[in-house]
């Protein structure tokens, strides 16, 4: 088990977590297989830590985020919050626990009820959890709007009157209404314009500081994830293939997939772009209903090809193992991957610009 801060009990833990979705077909709706969205994942998030989760669409990162706060039931394995098994909680206990964990969604347009005023949207969780009533509730709503950088006078307006960035702020206010300790941020900036993305990232970092929040930050934007995360996990076909401190995972990635992902991210500097050596992965991600035998990545792996297609990549599924302290990778040849220079982007301290 990989746990960076064993001296302190983690806030959230997943152990051997699996979430499978049945595939049914035919008029009898018989189960003919399953999508293995999350397929045996073990990790922990410490208090006040931000764990970033990256991966391509369909890798299972959103499903994993939802399973951590029991918006999805696990097919197998364990999820513990403050040491308590989520699956064992009764309805009432789960509801109480829900106050402690919230989620911010990607789509600031689809996740807010267009018929409710902003005040009602933010007040709803306060009412559900009976945290405040009447004047105190209204005061709390205004306080929350101010906290996320919105004018408290906006309470009687409707979502359509706001821009994408402002709607995302409303979503954040709603999540904060119940004073959670843990927030799953599921692609919170992906739907926003570039100039607005920075505002929301800054807001999430400020709130973390002020309120001592713990985040699971899910995104396909590798640069944004590095910016906000203490540690980062990389998912591929339902498994975490690499996890470790952001600095280590970005400067000496130990999984060939992480290197391929990094090398595919465009950098807004023409000189860097011309110098870079890229790994262009061939083909598409295989179906999570039928992942490849052995290492799931071997069908697209550049290192597997370079090493002359070693047999163990096809036959033995590599376990997540430490390559350096709490930096771990699931690759038989992680040491070889680490010593490649592919994918890593040199960093300058700060661009000098007027």
């Amino acid at each position, binding site marked *: 088990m990989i746990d960076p801060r064993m001296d302190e009990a983690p806030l959230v833990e997943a152990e051997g977590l699996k979430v499978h979705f049945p595939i049914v077909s035919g008029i009898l709706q018989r189960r003919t297989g399953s999508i293995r969205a999350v397929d045996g994942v073990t990790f922990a998030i410490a208090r006040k830590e931000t764990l970033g989760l990256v991966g391509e669409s369909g890798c299972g990162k959103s499903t994993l985020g939802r399973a951590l706060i029991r918006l999805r039931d696990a097919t197998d394995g364990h999820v513990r919050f403050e040491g308590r098994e989520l699956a064992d909680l009764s309805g009432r206990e789960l509801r109480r626990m829900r106050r402690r964990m919230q989620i911010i969604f990607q789509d600031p347009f689809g996740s807010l009820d267009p018929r409710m005023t902003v005040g009602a949207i933010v007040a709803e969780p306060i009412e559900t959890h009976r945290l405040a009533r009447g004047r105190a509730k209204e005061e709390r709503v205004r306080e929350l709007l101010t906290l996320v950088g919105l004018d408290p006078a906006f309470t009687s307006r409707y979502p359509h009157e706001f821009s994408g960035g402002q709607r995302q702020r409303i979503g954040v206010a709603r999540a904060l209404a119940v004073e959670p300790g843990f927030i799953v941020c599921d692609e919170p900036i992906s739907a926003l314009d570039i*100039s607005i993305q*920075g*505002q929301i990232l800054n807001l999430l970092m400020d709130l973390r500081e002020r309120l001592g929040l713990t985040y699971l930050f899910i995104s396909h934007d590798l640069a944004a994830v590095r910016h906000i995360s203490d540690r980062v996990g990389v998912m591929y076909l339902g498994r975490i293939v690499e996890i470790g401190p952001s600095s280590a995972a970005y400067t000496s990635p130990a999984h060939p997939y992480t290197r391929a992902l990094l090398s595919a991210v*465009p950098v807004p500097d023409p*000189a860097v*772009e011309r110098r870079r050596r890229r790994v262009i*992965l061939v083909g598409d991600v295989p179906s999570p209903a039928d992942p490849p035998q052995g290492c799931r990545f071997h069908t697209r792996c550049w290192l597997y090809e370079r090493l002359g297609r070693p047999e163990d990549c096809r036959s033995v599924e590599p376990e997540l193992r430490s390559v350096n302290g709490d930096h771990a990778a699931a690759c038989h040849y992680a040491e070889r991957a680490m010593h490649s220079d592919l994918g890593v982007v040199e960093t300058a301290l700060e*661009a000098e610009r007027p």
Partner: protein
Amino acid sequence: MTRPELVEISTREGARLAAQLADDADRHDRRLLHVQDLSTYFFTPGGAVHAVDEVSFDLDYGETLGLVGESGSGKTVTALSIARLVAEPPGRIVSGEVIFDGIDLLRLSREEMRLVRGRKIGFVFQDPMTSLNPTLTVGRQIGESARTHLGLSRAAAARHAADLLGTVGIPRARDRLGDYPHQFSGGMRQRVMIAIALACQPMLLIADEPTTALDVTIQAQIMELLRSLSREFRTAVILITHDLGLAAGMCQRVSVMYAGRIVESGVVDDIFERPRMPYTAALLDSRARLDIEPGGRLRTIEGLPPDLLDPAAECRFAPRCPHRRGICLEREPDMTPRPSAGDGHTARCWGTEPGGWIP
């Protein structure tokens, strides 16, 4: 990879067009595309929305230009206007010139324009699923344009389609001609779109956010494909994107759009190394990037772009600009030259004009 043979245009209008093209044999001193003061408005009950406002730029034969901006900046409407694909009403090209390979496109009849579009300009859009016909096989869709515009026979069109599918990197191309769009993955569908766009060997390929819906590893594949195709066929490309990183890696020149205007243009290195319009600089700084050490706050652009319904006479970025002074709110600056390493660096900013206050 074989370059498909071009066949003479068969229709009468086409013949006229071909003659016109042949007249201009000396293209050396000319640009492929010259856009001058192009304005496209959308007429709504509330007034005219100035979606594209006096946009000018040039594109060389075989050159790749990035049209960069956020949603609503007018980059897509600019591209649609060049190809005269703006829905009318509510939209209308109200003024300007679009000289494409020596022909003023805005003066062509609908039929002539249709020919130019089919033969000379290819399109790749963000979402291949909405641009492909779900009820036709991909072989038919690729071949159709070649049959219409190149006059190929059914069998020749099928061979041509198979060649193209192979060119864009679809494995077992011949076997997949009979497949329907839904049988392809997102990345493969975008390859099919590119094959259709290239079917008549266009001189210009307009790619509007071609990889925004795709994962980064697939995006890298598609960009590599576009790069090699434009090199091989000397196809000029207008890449419309909100991703400055993509423009940095793909384009020779970049034009930055904001609120219906081009606010800065230049060769790619000048734009990224020494932007002369605060909006460009702010865009570069407002996003986390892999080549800069993380930590601390990102610089942000406060506020929102202006309403394009009868925009004010001020610099359109002035209300959000940290460098603004009185003049910025009084008069909008023109695009004027800036001394730079590369040719033709222009910007629309009082502060970086000679003697301005922005260093």
